[in-house]
């Protein structure tokens, strides 16, 4: 007998006569009552010791350039909005064509990506690796991750975010949930930021609207 048949047989035997418990009546994706989603998101991202800046749409290109500072080589996903990089001065920009090796990525000091969702309560950014975010390795190997999130992409808590994820999973795409820079508490449970992933996470939160209205 195959192990598959053996295991399934043992499962069935183990459950013979057992009370079969129905799934709970759970309301999935319920929105959280968060009065100030933007304010909470900023507070919670900062809590992880990530950098977060609120910018107006017309300030974004300059903010991206500032965040990249003196980085001399930057990698970007193929679908990234070109205008975001218009203020870069001197840095070499590699657009990922899918052929960059891990070593190539290791020679890039920074990456700029968009995001799919921002979760206020947990201060989490979710990438679903569409073309404006690129394949997973891009936002992993370089040491600085500049991530552009729009206010309209923010949700209150985890349930709403999981609901939005369904489309990505159905399209066969992976997802990466990022809450601050990489960190470890493995030595005496003392938190140290910066292990294998990007040691610096710089979030640029873009205000909604056309940029002409003053924010409330």
């Amino acid at each position, binding site marked *: 007998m195959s192990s598959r048949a053996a295991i399934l047989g*043992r499962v069935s035997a183990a459950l013979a006569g057992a009370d079969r418990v129905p*799934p709970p009546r759970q309301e999935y994706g319920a929105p959280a009552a968060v009065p100030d989603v933007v304010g909470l998101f900023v507070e919670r991202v900062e809590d992880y010791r990530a950098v977060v800046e609120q910018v107006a749409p017309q300030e974004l290109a300059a903010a991206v350039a500032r965040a990249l500072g003196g980085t001399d080589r930057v990698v970007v996903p193929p679908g990234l909005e070109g205008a975001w990089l218009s203020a870069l001065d001197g840095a070499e920009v590699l657009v990922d064509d899918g052929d960059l090796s891990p070593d190539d990525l290791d020679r890039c000091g920074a990456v700029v990506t968009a995001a799919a969702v921002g979760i206020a309560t947990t201060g989490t950014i979710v990438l679903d690796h569409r073309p404006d975010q690129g394949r997973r390795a891009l936002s992993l190997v370089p040491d600085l991750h500049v991530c552009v999130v729009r206010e309209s992409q923010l949700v209150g808590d985890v349930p709403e975010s999981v609901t939005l994820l369904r489309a990505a999973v159905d399209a066969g795409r992976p997802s990466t*949930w990022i*809450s601050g820079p*990489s960190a470890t508490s493995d030595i005496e449970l003392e938190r140290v930021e910066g292990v*294998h992933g*990007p040691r610096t996470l710089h979030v640029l939160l873009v205000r909604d609207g056309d940029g002409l209205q003053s924010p409330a």
Partner: protein
Amino acid sequence: MSGTFLGMPSFQAAAKEALGNAQQRRNLEHATRTIRGKRAQVVAELDDWEGLRRTAAAIKDNVLTHLDSYLLQLEESLTRAGATVHWASDAEEANRIITGLVRATGTDEVVKVKSMATQEIGLNEALEEAGIRAWETDLAELIVQLGHDRPSHILVPAVHRNRAEIREIFLREMGQVGAPPPAVLTSDPRELAEAARVHLREKFLRARVAVSGANFAVADTGTLVVVESEGNGRMCLTLPETLISVVGIEKVVPRLEDLEVFLQLLPRSSTGERMNPYTSTWTGVTPGDGPQDVHVVLLDNGRTDALADSVGRQALRCIRCSACLNVCPVYQRVGGHAYGSVYPGPIGAILNPQLRGTTSEVDQSLPYASSLCGACGDVCPVGIEIPDLIVHLRTRVVDEHRGGVPSGEQLAMKGAAWLFADHRRWEKAQKGAELGGRVLGGKDTIGRLPGPLAAWSDARDAPTPPAETFRTWWKREKGGRR
């Protein structure tokens, strides 16, 4: 110290030795106190933690009592998404499958994401025997591996080591298996983490095969989830060409949306954070992104035995958060090694005897590694009634020892049963005790008892019998006036 748990002595024997290690006790006391505080704070932030726990328990109970159909659904989803599914009845079969898959790639090393399932099956040792080096990439696992040590905590396997010990291990061992630490290395955790970053980066960049576990396996989509902090998980799940994930059959959740419950419960219960730094989800193969050769090994290894026990079954709800370790007064003093398994603490006390059976000395002793204070059951995010299961398993161990030559304890219990069965016998016994109480006079407690009873009395202060029992007092005071 050996890397395996085979032939471990009973918990009580190992605990006695562990209690003598004052350094370890201090390390554990500090670490568990820190994490308890963090957990309590972030749990209090949620409006309805109890509701989340109840939902999680209900989802897991639904999974466990329909495991046959959910496993078939998972297999179908995974296969549709381009993954190859393997089934392993036990550790030996899982190791054989994985060794074969690694060999087929022509490489002789793998990078590993921290995974309880691969530790449970002793994968590293099996790969080593086949001439394949397995590099642990979680910082704590790296400390354990470099120190030729054993893990002592589910989440923080090197929790028994302090920074000075870790520095020494790095200086002594790192250079022998790859990039050495810097010549000047202090015991500052930041410097130690940096040394690990440099040491492991060359391994990540050249790795062709990775082995992981999974925190969750979603039946309706075939999505696997790994929850982590350091980015070593992302490195392993993303950069190599081949990914092999070992998944216990109880890790299934029915729907993608069920993750909303567990992704709120797990980080808060384990590291005491609102969310862990990185969570990765992947669904089979994504063309142009990550490993293109994806394997999933579904592992039984005793889980169906636990499933067959209608009471013990709920232990399979466990999501390996380790909150129960951090609140356990026994774990905090004894540490993880005495449990003789990769699953220490209260959850280990109920999981190991069910997964491995109760034939070995250590597995028979584990249900007794508890004061039954109940703290573990209170913090469990999936509502496992750990104290109830401990008592249930004690019953099982006792039942299995019936027949044959009775032990001293069994004789004593038989005697007590005879005594309690008839009130006249009990009254007579109490008369005797009153006499004893008067003889012992002013003493409050009985000291050391002679012979085999010494083992019992050495650890306990038994009160001396009263000079007058309640029954005697009642007769004297109220009996006549009723």
